[in-house]
């Protein structure tokens, strides 16, 4: 019994540093966002005293439903495109020789490690009205000289897929690598076509990877801010842009908090759904096995 208490103390000892840090600097601030939604703003950009429903009322602004809707559909399309591209990649990477796989993996990881801003900026250069791509498209008569490739929803979508794709590839590849490819042979042996085997055997086999990829792409997409800010225009603003505007331009912190609270709720729903789904996939056996 004494030894057991010692183990409990030890558990708390190694848990407390990170737990306290995150409680104070992550959980409390998140709860604070909800609280400050009900605080008045001061003219100097601070937070007033007392409680008000003013922010909730301004959230009814007729501009917002369009922005919320755009945020959601852009995130859905980005996630779908990322998963559609990443799945054949995961399949391919899991099937090639380890040497080649190492190389392809490195090529996929490299952009992931490079500066986020640099990658967005690279697209800005490429899509720029005087940039290479535009001139090529005009030369091929695919667009007129007045078409803008930049500062529109298409540019936002393209760059979001570009930056989020590695987050879809890595979990799908990890799941594909563990997949037993003899199952595909078995399916073909039983008369399935390659595509049928891919759909009916491979996709269910990498379900956990697909769910993780969905989570890793969809949720950060909902909170996108820098991409629409740099390559988007007024017609491609997302919730993130509004939060930043309220924080840095209008300096109305309660309003920014209100939008953040909304976004937090929007993020928590898919997150909790997916985590419960995933937990059902692989229930962890908590009990320690005895003497096997």
């Amino acid at each position, binding site marked *: 019994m004494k030894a057991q208490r010692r183990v409990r103390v030890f558990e708390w000892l190694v848990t407390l540093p990170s737990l306290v840090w995150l409680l104070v600097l992550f959980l409390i601030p998140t709860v604070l966002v909800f609280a400050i939604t009900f605080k008045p703003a001061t003219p100097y950009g601070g937070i007033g005293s007392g409680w008000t429903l003013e922010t909730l009322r301004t959230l009814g602004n007729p501009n917002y439903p369009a922005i919320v809707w755009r945020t959601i559909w852009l995130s859905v399309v980005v996630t779908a495109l990322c998963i559609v591209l990443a799945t054949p990649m995961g399949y*391919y990477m899991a099937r090639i020789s380890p040497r080649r796989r190492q190389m392809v993996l490195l090529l996929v990881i490299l952009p992931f490690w490079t500066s986020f801003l640099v990658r967005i900026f690279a697209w800005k250069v490429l899509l720029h009205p005087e940039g290479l791509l535009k001139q090529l498209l005009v030369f091929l008569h695919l667009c007129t000289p007045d078409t803008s490739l930049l500062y529109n929803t298409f540019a936002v979508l393209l760059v979001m897929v570009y930056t989020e794709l590695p987050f879809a590839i890595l979990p799908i590849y990890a799941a594909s690598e563990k997949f037993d490819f003899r199952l595909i042979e078995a399916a073909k042996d039983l008369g399935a076509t390659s595509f049928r085997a891919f759909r009916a055997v491979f996709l269910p086999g990498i379900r956990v990877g697909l769910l993780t990829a969905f989570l890793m792409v969809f949720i950060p997409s909902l909170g996108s801010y820098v991409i629409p800010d740099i390559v988007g225009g007024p017609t491609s603003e997302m919730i993130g842009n509004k939060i930043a505007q309220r924080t840095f331009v209008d300096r109305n912190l309660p309003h920014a908090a209100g939008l953040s609270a909304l976004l937090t709720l929007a993020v928590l729903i898919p997150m909790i759904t997916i985590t419960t789904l995933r937990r059902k996939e692989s229930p962890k056996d908590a009990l320690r096995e005895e003497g096997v």
Partner: protein
Amino acid sequence: MKPSRVPMIVTWAVILFFYLPIVILVANSFNSSRFGGSWESTSLKWYIRLMQEDDIWHALQNTLFIALSATLVSMVLGTSAAFALHRFAGSRLQKLHYSIIYTPLVLPEILMGLSMLLFFVALKVQLGLVTIAIAHVTFCLSYVAMTVLARLQDFDFAIVEAAQDLGAGWWTTVWRVLLPMLAPGILAGGLLAFTLSIDDFVISFFVAGPGSTTLPIKIYSMIKYGAPPLINALSTILLVITFTCVIVSQYLTQQEPKAAK
């Protein structure tokens, strides 16, 4: 039956898609024209101009200070967290612990940025390098914990018992067995934390104060308000540094013998 070529074509097309803008960016940095549409002449003029920008050097110093301190603190906190999560897996405390470590990984950065700004404002803390470093530790911690935890998953706990069985007390076990064995995982986590911290823009932007401009914040304002050719040059330098680091670390981890099974 011939295997389908679609996966291969998609893979290489995506890789092309990944590198196309980067290659053009690097090429442009040697172009004396302001935009890549026309090639005036090959020159290093943007690099020379870059060297004269004192702001950039100052921002780089800030970034490195933040990255180093955030990495060190998050390595300590993250390693201890990973150890707790692994050793006591299944206990109610660790379930809570896991959720609170996992959530920052998926939450959009802007939410973390704003919530921390509100927190510091509410506590009337002066914004600056320290608040940025604190914010960075908060998200780096989770990455370090997850990296070390992944290492611990294939860690045979009998090894800890073996050390105790051979007479090693708790400290000896930690110093002579546990830490040396986990060192690659902790270093990998630290490297990830360092890179993320250096690269972070959104969170830093929210909790930055006067005089605490970091390199990403500087780059952002350059992108937003002019000087594109300078960023071409700066970006190229950053790309060369990260590519070298990643390739070297990949090479190192491949050299390292795989864990005994």
